[in-house]
């Protein structure tokens, strides 16, 4: 058993692209966790999606053996964290398994808003934060300026920060030496009643439910009977061990350790994230404080293109939900799209990722409706209704007041883009709450309606600041606003899945833009298609998709039939991916049209 004093549990806090995964890979390499042959780029981002997008979505962990220059051997447990604002909840989960965190800052770019927010989370959770300057090899690196920024914006001492290049390997030994010195060892008693916190659980097709745990007290051994405290159910431990990053079985996990547990849990909600595992025969007196339950903020309908896949979609959502506590879903029925689920997400990236995982990992063809936020509606009878679906908005004459969610947004950006970003915030109905100069960076604080942010705020912010602005936000309150429901009618038939809630001042423009966008996105059909935008019974915009006149091959003389067949098969497959609403075939994109509006202007 490893002496507690020789264990270090840590995370890395870093903005996307600041080199967290590369640094993790370097640690693994330095400590010999993988042979060179096994070392594929960025091993920790194990989902294909994560590798492709270069971001971390789910927590992963790796246990490494590090020998310090003085000869002492340490067990380093590194718990990876996601870097995107949508996943701040996951970050706090990962941090709860650690005693310290490395704050990795790109020494050419400086501090970013999300790192600031995550850093505060770490400090709040009592972690030791160790600043690290990465990408020191870049010609544009300006470590002294970045040190000032760290001290000024985050307020931690940074002059001693180790300077590294994860890419070239410069400074890695110094960083590891610094890490074991500055991050405290875990505390805990291996003899005490068992308390192991479930940091993450996921469903593996071969192994069943796998949980990543941090043992706080006591020792868990193979074959023991464990108790999941929230459900009161007991299971036998089949396997446990550590990730090196390969799965490596061990006989036990003792206080201070981070590792995996596989038991006889078959049902996917048997090991909820944030729950505590203890021994069935010697239970701990109480569970560890779990995680704060997160509220999904963005909602959208997900519908299978093929109605037969409804049950598959339900099962897939269940599996994803197992280790994605922030994902919410409940059945929804749409006149246009049939049976599906209304799903709640942390933000737009979370939504995109869930959708992509459903399509890729579960091979489902989905249609998603435009994302919406949750509104509070006070009815004339004095009831309070929460509306997460525009088509459920009560009739206008029953609404006393609609309230929209307001967020407080912190935007960190270089001075030269302040003008652009302020203009954007004003366009998005933002109210400035603060502006602070910090070195060459400026921190803007705005209160913004969340529904404006979920549409295209991220993309626009990146484009008006050439990618330099970063954003972090938190929910503030519900606030009354002049909101109306904008309906889209296709050949005079209202398509419920296309309705959106907008501010009255923007409704005319939005209606026109949306109708125009629909005309672009819906392919010509065999008949004219009329598109109308309406508020209540009042038509505010109309446009027409002219009928296709013909679809026929000019030539066919017995020759290459297979090529013609493939062409027609392709046409047919394209149609299958469309949803038939009345007689009109509407492509997936169109249900998302509101997101495309104004993008190419």
């Amino acid at each position, binding site marked *: 058993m490893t002496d507690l004093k020789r264990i270090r549990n840590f995370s890395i806090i870093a903005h996307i692209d600041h080199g967290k995964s590369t640094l993790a890979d370097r640690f693994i390499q330095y400590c010999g966790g993988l042979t060179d042959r096994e070392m594929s780029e960025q091993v920790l981002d194990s989902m294909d999606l994560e590798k492709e997008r270069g971001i971390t979505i789910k927590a992963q962990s790796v246990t490494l053996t590090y020998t310090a220059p003085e000869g002492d051997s340490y067990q380093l447990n590194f718990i990876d964290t996601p870097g995107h604002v949508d996943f701040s909840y996951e970050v706090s989960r990962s941090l709860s398994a650690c005693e310290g965190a490395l704050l990795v800052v790109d020494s050419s770019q400086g501090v970013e808003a999300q790192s600031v927010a995550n850093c505060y989370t770490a400090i709040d959770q009592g972690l030791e934060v160790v600043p690290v300057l990465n990408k020191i090899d870049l010609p544009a690196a300006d470590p002294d300026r970045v040190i000032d920024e760290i001290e000024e914006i985050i307020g931690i001492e940074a002059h001693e920060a180790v300077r590294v290049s994860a890419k070239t390997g410069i400074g890695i030994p110094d960083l590891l030496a610094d890490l074991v010195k500055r991050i405290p060892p875990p505390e805990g008693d291996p003899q005490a009643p068992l308390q192991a916190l479930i940091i993450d659980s996921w469903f593996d097709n071969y192994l069943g439910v796998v949980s990543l745990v941090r043992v706080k007290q006591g020792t868990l051994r193979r074959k023991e009977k464990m108790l999941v405290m929230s459900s009161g159910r007991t299971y036998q431990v089949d396997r446990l061990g550590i990730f090196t990053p390969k799965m490596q079985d061990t006989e036990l996990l003792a206080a201070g350790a981070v590792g995996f547990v596989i038991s006889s849990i078959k049902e996917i909600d048997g090991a909820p994230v944030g729950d505590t595992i203890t021994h069935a025969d010697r239970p701990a007196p109480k569970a560890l404080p779990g995680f704060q339950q997160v509220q999904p903020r963005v909602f959208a309908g997900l519908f299978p293109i093929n109605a037969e896949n409804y049950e598959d979609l339900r099962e897939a959502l269940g599996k994803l939900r197992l280790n994605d506590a922030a994902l919410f879903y409940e059945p929804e029925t749409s006149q246009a799209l049939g049976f599906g689920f209304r799903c709640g997400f942390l933000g737009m990236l979370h939504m995109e990722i869930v959708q992509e995982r459903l399509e890729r990992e579960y091979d489902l063809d989905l249609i998603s409706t435009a994302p919406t936020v949750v509104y509070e509606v006070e009815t004339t009878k004095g009831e309070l209704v929460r509306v997460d679906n525009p088509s459920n908005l009560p009739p206008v004459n029953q609404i006393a007041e609609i309230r929209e969610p307001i967020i407080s947004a912190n935007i960190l950006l270089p001075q030269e883009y302040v003008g652009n970003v302020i203009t954007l915030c004003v366009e998005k109905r933002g109210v400035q709450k603060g502006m602070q100069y910090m070195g060459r960076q400026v921190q803007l604080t705005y209160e913004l309606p969340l529904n404006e942010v979920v549409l295209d705020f991220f993309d626009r912010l990146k484009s008006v600041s050439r990618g330099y602005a970063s954003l972090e936000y938190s929910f503030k309150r519900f606030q009354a606003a002049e909101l109306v429901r904008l309906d889209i009618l296709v050949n005079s038939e209202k398509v419920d899945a296309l309705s959106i809630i907008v501010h009255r001042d923007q409704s005319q423009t939005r209606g026109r833009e949306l109708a125009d966008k629909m005309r672009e996105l819906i392919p010509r059909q*065999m008949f004219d298609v009329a598109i109308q935008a309406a508020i209540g019974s009042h038509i505010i915009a109309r446009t027409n998709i*002219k009928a*296709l*006149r*013909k*679809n*026929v*091959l*000019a*030539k*066919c*003389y*017995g*020759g*290459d*039939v297979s090529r*013609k*067949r493939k062409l*027609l*098969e392709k*046409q*047919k497959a394209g149609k299958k991916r469309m949803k038939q609403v009345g007689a009109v075939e509407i492509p997936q994109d169109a249900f998302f049209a509101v997101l495309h509006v104004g993008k190419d202007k």
Partner: protein
Amino acid sequence: MDPSPPLQLRVNPPLSLYIHFPWCVRKCPYCDFNSHPLPTDLPEQAFVDALLADLEADLPTVWGRPVGSLFFGGGTPSLLSPEALDRLLQGIRALIPLVPLAEITLEANPGTLEAGRFAELRAAGINRLSIGVQSFNNAALAPLGRIHSGEEARAAVEAARRAGIENLNLDLMFGLPGQTPASALSDLRIATDLAPEHISWYQLTLEPNTPFAHTPPPALPDEDQLVAIQEAGEAHLAAAGYGQYEVSAYARAGWQCRHNRNYWLFGDYLGIGPGAHGKLTSPAVGCIERTRRVAHPNDYLARSVPQRLAERSPIAVDLLPFEFMLNALRLKEGFPLALFADRTGLSPATIAPTLQAAEQKGMLQVTAERIAPTLHGWRFLNDLIALFLPD
């Protein structure tokens, strides 16, 4: 694939023979046929020998069946010397019986024929000439990469007539760069004034892997203009006595192309020469086969006879309804209901639900005797025949 029961093929369909000549003086940028630049030393002798060897190799599959039509396509088969053509035709006649008065078509390009040759072609046995005019408008011909002028095209038609060719087809295109209904009609008027028996009037399409698909020519008419051109052209052709019988084919009464009709009625055909496709019914085995020979002429000439056959495989049973409809529904008059079972060996019940669905969509007219596309179904023929694709 699932072992499927042999098809109930009771009769052999009519048989045609297609001969491919794979060379052109110059490849046109819209063309996706198997054509290659004409070499300076065309191995005519070897080529004719190869074609005859192909035919001989195919004979056992069509034993005893006479050939109803021959079609020399390309490429530009009129580049073949009359002597070589004469030897080829004699060779074919010696190998396989032709029905009396078999239709024998040769494709010709106006720029490649001297007037004197027509008589020789006719003497060799060619009784139908298909001239690739495309347009009589010189300004339209240049961007198409054609090597001839409108005047040469007219001269070719007149020379063919003087040489006694009684069955003439003119190939014309519409939807050319900058074309309007007026300019398309003026092209058609010149064509109908020349009074050929047959006109193939087809829309320029940008085929994959052609220079036009890569860089489309400027000012192509849009869809609405194309339909306006098509409607004006169809009216003119009808008024001039040319009845439309297929998507792109128009003929005076009694002069429909027998060879192409056989394709469209899902008949059988042998295909010899580089890249030539064949389709053959084999009642004994209970299947319908497709054959394909290697495409590149050099490759073709270098290989032994059996090795030239790049593919010979039965059409999957579940694809037969689609392949039949792909052809038969191109015909305006459609087909007699019994033909489906005769040609595919499948029971009409296999397509009954699809026929009904297509009828409900207003795309097919189904009576006890005939099945024919409606005008709507014909305009959206791709959608109509796609209904017959297996899921």
